[in-house]
């Protein structure tokens, strides 16, 4: 038997299964999400009423910018409002 026979190659190909739909796209949108976060933060600095709306509903603020509100993106936006 050789080091990598068909069975072993098949087993190793099968070990990397497709990622559930939407996960890859959300990760690929991170640069756009970063830009959107910067835009939201800048606007919130200049507009107190907008800031209040964002703090009350982070998900909607991201959705308005066309960004998927994944937990990682939400955490980052939340952190920015705490630190700024």
């Amino acid at each position, binding site marked *: 038997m050789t080091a990598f026979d068909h069975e072993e190659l098949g087993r190793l190909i099968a*070990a*990397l299964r497709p990622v559930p739909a939407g996960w890859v796209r959300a*990760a690929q949108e991170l640069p756009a999400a970063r830009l959107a976060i910067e835009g939201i933060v800048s606007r919130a600095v200049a507009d107190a009423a907008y800031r209040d709306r964002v703090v009350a509903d982070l998900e909607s603020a991201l959705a308005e910018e066309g960004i998927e509100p994944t937990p990682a993106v939400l955490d980052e936006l939340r952190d920015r409002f705490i630190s700024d």
Partner: protein
Amino acid sequence: MTVTSDDQLVARCRAGETPAWNELVERYSRYVYAICTQGFRLQDHDAEDVFQDVFTRVYTNLDRLREDGAFRPWLAQLTRRSCLDRLRSSAREALAEEVEPRDVDETLSLIDDALMVHEAMATLPDNCRDILDRFFARDESYRVIADALGLPPGTVASRISRCLDKLKPLVEERGGAARPGVG
């Protein structure tokens, strides 16, 4: 087929090229997912959070990576830490070694080998890459593959076998033959 190396891809990501970032995520998404779900046995809802967290950290910290060619081990380490953080948060009083699955190192080694095989696959012609991925990774039947690719059902098995024959030397070129305990 020529594949962009990790160091070239990382350098382009640092320069802000969106297509390079998309390719980097695509290239390593299954790897990160496998570490989460097979290495650390996270359920999908936890794995999704870790998956997004890992790529956020990668994007944020890419400038801190000292050697562009060291991307894969760096990514593996980030993923491992993020999985452990998730496990610890759901078992707050347990020590890291208690929450980590006992066979995690063995599984991560297998996942590294699997990545190496997929990297070799990426250099195969499209038709071979597609049929091998459909059959083994996507678990599609001969019938489904035949319908999707417009092939007579009786030829699917022989085509898979021929593609595996093409893949084998590519894997061995990458050092796969030196892997102990296989075969």
